[in-house]
């Protein structure tokens, strides 16, 4: 879909709101190392996989943010950043910009502020977030369900059908699990939950997916309570 950069694209959003989000991006500790200035040399675009498939240009995002063009920034924040593949091929920028890194920061701001575009981009992604936050591993064997990966062919079904047996037929003792990538010890999970608690990650989840937040909070609070921690995520 063609990117609409027209001036009235988000006319209904007050300029002050756009500026507030822009300043949040600029205040991030990574910002100064991710964006210097832009030559418009196009090196980032040429190396970019997403630029080949979408109307997506790391150059335009870097240029808009470097110009401090708040209106353009807001358009990219909503309509463009989720196309990025986060491969960091653009890191070769001669000005040493990291358009991919800049986009990481912009995504975090979009999530923290619960932008509708961020919620939409992350639809269908909740189970991954749930998995990583609650179990400490991101991709679990039991995710290999044919309904989730129809384009990967019948082989997914074969794995799914044989999952328990095939996991047992793995010599490393830590890999016999099906609900997590490997067996993570209880103490480790508790430590991970405490990290989420101390770094405010749950607040981000709450902004972008209230339902997911509630499920996660329940799971984690209960587990922490069992271990004697009185922690609430609210």
């Amino acid at each position, binding site marked *: 879909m063609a990117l609409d950069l027209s001036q009235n694209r988000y006319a209904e959003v007050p300029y002050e709101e756009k500026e507030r989000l822009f300043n949040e991006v600029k205040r991030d500790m990574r910002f100064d190392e991710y964006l210097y200035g832009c*030559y*418009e*040399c*196009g090196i980032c675009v*040429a190396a*970019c996989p997403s630029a080949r498939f979408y109307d997506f240009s790391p150059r335009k995002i870097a240029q808009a943010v470097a110009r401090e063009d708040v209106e353009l920034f807001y358009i990219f924040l909503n309509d463009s950043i989720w196309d990025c593949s986060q491969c960091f091929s653009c890191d*070769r920028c001669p000005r040493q910009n990291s358009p991919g890194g800049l986009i990481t920061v912009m995504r975090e701001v979009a999530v923290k502020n619960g932008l509708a575009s961020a919620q939409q981009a992350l639809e269908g992604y909740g189970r991954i977030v749930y998995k990583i936050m609650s179990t400490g591993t991101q991709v679990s064997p039991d995710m290999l369900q044919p309904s989730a990966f129809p384009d990967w062919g019948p082989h997914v079904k074969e794995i799914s059908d044989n999952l328990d047996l095939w996991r047992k037929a793995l010599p490393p003792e830590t890999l016999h699990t099906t609900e997590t990538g490997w067996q993570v010890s209880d103490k480790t999970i508790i430590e991970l939950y405490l990290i989420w608690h101390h770094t405010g990650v749950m607040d981000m989840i709450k902004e972008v997916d209230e339902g997911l937040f509630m499920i996660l909070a329940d799971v984690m609070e209960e587990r922490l309570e069992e271990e004697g921690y009185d922690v609430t995520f609210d």
Partner: protein
Amino acid sequence: MPEQSVLIVGGGPAGLEAARGVADLGYKAILVEKRNRLGGTPDEANYAALTPDFRPAEEAMREMADAVQNHPNVELHLNSTVTAASGSVGDFEVTLKNAKGVEKVKAGAVIIATGFTHFDPGRETQQYGYYEFDDVITLVDLEKMLKAHKVVRPSNGQPPKRLCFIQCVGSRDRQIGNEYCSKVCCGIASKEAIEVRQQVPDCKVFIFYIDMRMYGYWENEIYWPAQEKYKVNYIKGIATEVLKKGDQLIVRGEDATFGRPMEVPMDIVVLSVGMEPSAGTKEMAKVFGLETNKYNFIETIGGALNTVTTSKEGVFACGACTGPADLEDSISSASAAALKAVSMLRKVAQAA
């Protein structure tokens, strides 16, 4: 009595002009050159024509060398390097080393003219394949081919049908640590582009650039003719990669004007390598204890009003050892250095 001679290190265009200047002003010029002949990089790298006037480099360098070689006030030390220096303004003692051994010479002032070296494309941040593909060459390599009137693909000896230049290789790049513009590459690439069009009229020529930096008369003398008369294609956008597909090179970049990724076939890719301080420049900064900037070029301390005075009294620097310089800059600063060095000798003599 203070020494009435000026020692000049480096026999390239700047050193030759400085030596001639000192000698013409009636002072002794001691010229030290590490190679067995004069002419510097234009001679050593076998340049074809000079930028911007297309004058044959060999002839121009011979003229400069002759003016010095036959000058009664010039003492020439070829095959010699400076290995140590002591003393101060009016009374330097400089140690020269050559095949015969070590020799000490006295001088009242010193001019450093040790120039630059071409950036090594092996350190390029992009993937240009200079060390992988025969048909990826540098501006310097193309000069040699132009001089020999043999512009062909190194891989198969055939004349190219499509040739491109990629600008800013090793310049204007924070990742490499060379943030500066090398000043001459836009002009040289455009000059070479014209020459390629003259020698191989069937060959299409492209220049991929960030900005074309063709200041002053270079605009009308080179850039416009290249675009208007010789139909050189100027494309805003720098290549990220040079790839090989079959026996053809592919240049990948963004055509920034039209905002689209591009992959275009080329027979020859010429990397417009920039300038870095030469080994001699770095060495002389150490030997004479001169301040250098973060790029290891010799620092001049007079700002815009004095481009040749270094941090050490009595030692001057000119040409590309102080930063990227074209021939016009180098000759101008060499004359300034000669004048300042001689003035310094006279002041010291008057004070004595």
